């Protein structure tokens, strides 16, 4: 029964998109989209409540080899994540009605967000790896369209292209990983694959795991494929909230969690994942601290928080990672939506243009404070509980209990997690101070359509951790809790002290000359631009040149040479019969000699 319920969870937003795209203009704004997402949310909750694992399957098409199947697979993990996705999507849809009021392209925007939600739910609930890949790709395309919503701005359209190409590069790795697993297991069904993992040879599993890592790194914007996420902020704020905070980028974490047995069978892949996570974690956190635009701060913060989840997975803390995923989705979506409200109110995203909005926008101030608190990890927010679980998991791994990852890497992860917690608290407080304190600025509070979803998201951001205490495995451990709170208070304290010493000045000046370097995440983006992009366009120019000169010329040249050769032979035809006779008799002589010699 639950499986039968799960199918409409995916189909509802898909139908909303299918209806909304052509007919959007004629219906009142967003009705179809919000209705679809709401239905999907209700059903998702129903499925989560009944929480009995179930699976339905249908054969989509014969392929001459392994058949491609279509179906839904509901488990504890997928149900919770599905609920999270649908709720955040609902909040974003409602918020978008207000945020994009009067935008002529709103109907197609709403339809594309519904299509995106359907694609994300396909990834979460799919029973067949190829179907997951299909959802994965459709998500990529929807993100391309939504980032390029204001396609008349060159920045938006080039950011969209960059985001799609980088994720597409990762997706190719993911597809090849699916091929390896599917061919080894003889079927693409997830249950079959997971059952067949013990039987697979070590190299196959390692190859599959590493390819999955490539796919996941691409989609979740981890180092080295991270530089598209900050540029993706060119898209409207609700898009950033939904896609680049809660769902798409989190799909990578969900996938690793889903195929965790594969990764358990290939510890080397987990080591690689851990190292990448550590690098992304610290790099992104420092970049968040140094960057000057509010949304870019949140983007780098997302990269850093995702690295936390990957680090938790790497050290074996699967439940910790999922908990942090859910709570992060809540408070990061909240932060982005608040940022959207602030930007529309003030008209600019740069932190220097903001400041002193505490009294002008009380509701936004309150909810954003909750968001920043959860991000930093102050108790009693959900962020504190989930981050603590990650720190605890890192601690156990470091003390050599789980023995999944090599001990050195475990220690590295534990130290990095604590450090990142501190820096996160620092940039959270900095952003908070620069946005709401300092010189008063006239601004109007956003309308109820915007503040409603903010409040709706503030509740889980604050209370989710407490509510989750019911399950024993989600309770914090005191040792790691104390350590993380200490580090957080230290981080926040430094920034507060800096602020009190020089009110109004950007605490990031602490970094001094290193700031531009850190702000652009060690210039990785320009590095890619100069190397990969220029190399490909250069090669393309040369290919076109070669194509015209060598391949094309070879053909037309042969035609012209034939003509020239004809002209040459024609010279023998000068009208003089005696020349003809010489030719004839020379031929006769040649033939006669040939026959006498050869025959």
């Amino acid at each position, binding site marked *: 029964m639950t499986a039968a319920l799960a199918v409409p969870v995916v189909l509802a937003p898909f139908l909303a998109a299918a209806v909304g795209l052509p007919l959007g203009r004629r219906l009142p704004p967003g009705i179809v989209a919000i209705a679809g997402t709401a239905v999907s949310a209700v059903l998702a909750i129903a499925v989560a409540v009944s929480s009995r694992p179930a699976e339905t399957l249908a054969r989509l098409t014969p392929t001459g080899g392994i058949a491609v199947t279509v179906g839904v697979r509901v488990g504890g993990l997928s149900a919770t994540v599905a609920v999270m996705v649908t709720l955040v999507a609902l909040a974003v849809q409602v918020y978008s009605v207000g945020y994009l009021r009067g935008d002529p392209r709103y109907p197609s925007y709403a339809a594309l967000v519904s299509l995106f939600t359907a694609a994300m739910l396909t990834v979460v609930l799919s029973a067949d790896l190829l179907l997951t890949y299909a959802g994965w790709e459709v998500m990529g395309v929807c993100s391309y369209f939504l980032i390029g919503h204001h396609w008349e701005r060159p920045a938006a359209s080039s950011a969209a292209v960059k985001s799609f190409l980088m994720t597409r590069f990762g997706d190719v790795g993911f597809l090849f990983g699916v091929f390896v697993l599917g061919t080894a297991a003889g079927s693409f069904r997830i249950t079959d694959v997971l059952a067949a993992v013990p039987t697979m040879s070590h190299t196959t599993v390692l190859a599959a795991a590493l390819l999955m890592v490539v796919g996941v790194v691409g989609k979740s914007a981890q180092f080295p494929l991270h530089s598209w996420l900050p540029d993706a902020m060119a898209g409207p704020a609700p898009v950033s909230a939904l896609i680049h905070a809660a769902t798409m980028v989190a799909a990578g974490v969900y996938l690793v969690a889903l195929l965790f047995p594969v990764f358990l069978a290939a510890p080397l892949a987990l080591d690689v994942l851990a190292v990448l996570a550590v690098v992304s974690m610290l790099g992104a956190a420092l970049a968040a601290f140094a960057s000057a635009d509010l949304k870019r701060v949140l983007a780098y913060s997302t990269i850093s928080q995702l690295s936390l989840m990957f680090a938790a997975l790497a050290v074996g803390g699967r439940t910790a990672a999922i908990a942090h995923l859910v709570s992060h989705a809540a408070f990061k979506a909240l932060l982005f939506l608040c940022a959207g409200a602030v930007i529309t109110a003030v008209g600019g995203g740069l932190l220097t243009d903001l400041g002193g909005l505490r009294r002008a926008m009380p509701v936004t101030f309150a909810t954003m404070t909750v968001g920043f608190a959860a991000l930093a990890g102050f108790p009693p927010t959900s962020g504190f509980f989930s981050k603590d679980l990650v720190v605890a998991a890192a601690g156990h791994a470091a003390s050599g209990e789980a023995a999944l990852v090599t001990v050195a890497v475990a220690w590295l992860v534990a130290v990095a997690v604590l450090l990142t917690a501190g820096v996160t608290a620092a940039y959270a407080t900095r952003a908070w101070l620069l946005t709401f304190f300092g010189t008063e600025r006239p601004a109007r509070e956003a309308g109820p359509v915007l503040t409603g979803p903010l409040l709706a998201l503030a509740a889980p951001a604050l209370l989710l951790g407490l509510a989750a205490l019911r399950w024993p495995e989600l309770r914090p451990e005191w040792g790691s809790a104390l350590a993380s709170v200490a580090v957080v208070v230290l981080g926040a304290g430094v920034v507060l002290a800096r602020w009190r010493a020089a009110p109004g000045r950007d605490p990031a000046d602490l970094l001094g000359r290193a700031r531009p370097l850190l702000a652009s995440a060690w210039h990785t983006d320009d590095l890619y631009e100069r190397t990969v992009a220029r190399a490909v366009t250069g090669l393309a120019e040369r290919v076109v040149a070669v194509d015209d000169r060598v391949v094309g010329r070879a053909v037309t040249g042969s*035609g012209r040479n*034939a*003509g020239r*050769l*004809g*002209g040459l*032979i*024609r010279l*023998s*035809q000068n*009208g003089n*019969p*005696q*020349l*003809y*006779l010489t*030719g*004839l*008799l*020379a*031929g*006769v002589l040649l*033939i*006669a000699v*040939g*026959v*006498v010699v050869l*025959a």
Partner: protein
Amino acid sequence: MQTIQSVDYLAVAPPLMLALTAVGVLVADAFLPARRSPWIGGAALTGVLLALAADLVLAVGVLPQDRPRGTFCVGASCSYSVDRFTLLFQAVLLVAGTVVLLLANGEVRRAGLPAGEFHFLLLTALAGALTIAAGRDLVILVVGLEVVSLPVFALVALRRYDGRSAEAGLTMFLVSVTSTAVMLFGVSLVYGATGSMLLDTISAALRRPGTPHTVAATGVVLVLVGFGFKVSAVPFHFWAPDTYQGAPIAVAAFLSVVSKAAGFAGLVLVLTVGFGSYAGVWGPLVAVLAAASMTVGNLVALRQRAAIRLLAWSSIAQAGYMLAPLGAAAGLVGEPRVLGVLAAATVGYVAIYAVMNLGVFAVLSFVGWIDGLGGGRLDDYRGMARSHPALALALAFCLACLAGLPPGLAGLFAKIVVFRGVLTGGYGWLAVLMAVNTVLGLAYYLAWASRLFAPGPSESTAAFGPVPRHVAIAVGLAVAGTALMSVLPQLVLGVAPTLGG
């Protein structure tokens, strides 16, 4: 020794009838006043049609039992025998003859050629061609060849007031006479080596080990030269372009179709019936000649701007295609059945080529002489589709056939048969070379055909005036023949000389 030869007059009927008509025409021209000259054309035409009728009667007699009807025989082997091969060739030659006569009708009147002499010479040449097709004896073949060549020298030079016509005549005369002399020398050597002039006796003699091998081989090869000249294969092709340009268009048509077909008839007879067992000797030679002819013919044709010269080079290239299957015989020494298949390929191609080419020459003769060039330049055909749609479509159809591309199915089947012949002989390289040559061929046929439909200046084509009746019939006959070959090519494919012994 039986001294009186019994002559089977029915077997000899077609050439005999033509000869009689020729003499009749010549005599009649002497007595008739000038204004009756169209009658001579009519008489010539009736003569040819009568010969064709005789041919059909013979066909009814010979075809069913598929037993050749021989005459002038010594024991079993006859000098003059009529079998399916001969009948096919005689039929093709006679149809071609009719079309040439139709074309000549207009030209004789316009260019002021002497009607009596012209038709007399044409008919005698045609009679010579028919005898070659039936000849099974080196003497008859040589004499037949001469009877075809000599009248043509005179025909070529018949435009007496045009310096270039005399020059063409002299060029052709010199080259032809020299190649005949070389061929006769070859015949004498073969006669010396084998002791007989009858082809099947020669074939038996060549198989006997006692025959002096080198002398016979040289003889065989030198005989090839004579026929090489007739079919204008490279290196004996130099005369063709100049002669076609100098000669009246009808004579050029005669040269390109009838005289070439006669040459191929002789060549096939000599090579398969006579020198079959020496395939190892003449095979590679013919293959090289074929390759050279098609390549040189096509390459030079690419650069031609005058229509008649382009057709000359195109017919040299087509001669290359026709020689190719015979060239492939080298690989199958001594297997008469397969040699027959290869010969059938050449015969089939020659028959289809004859009909295709006539269509083009018919349109050329309609266009007539433009500033000293028979058939004008390619650019004079620009926009012909608008002024003379039917004629332009007929020309385009025939060019497509020559190129071997549908809608010209006849040309395509001819090419397929020739390709198959070459491949059964195992000559892969020749087949690939032919594929390349078909592309070269298409290049210049296309250049011409696309001009027909090009929107360009149409005042040159408009100046041609309406299509006279006899040209219409000629074009109609040629296109009908090609269409028939497109749908039922098996009429001409698969016919080979009956190989004795």
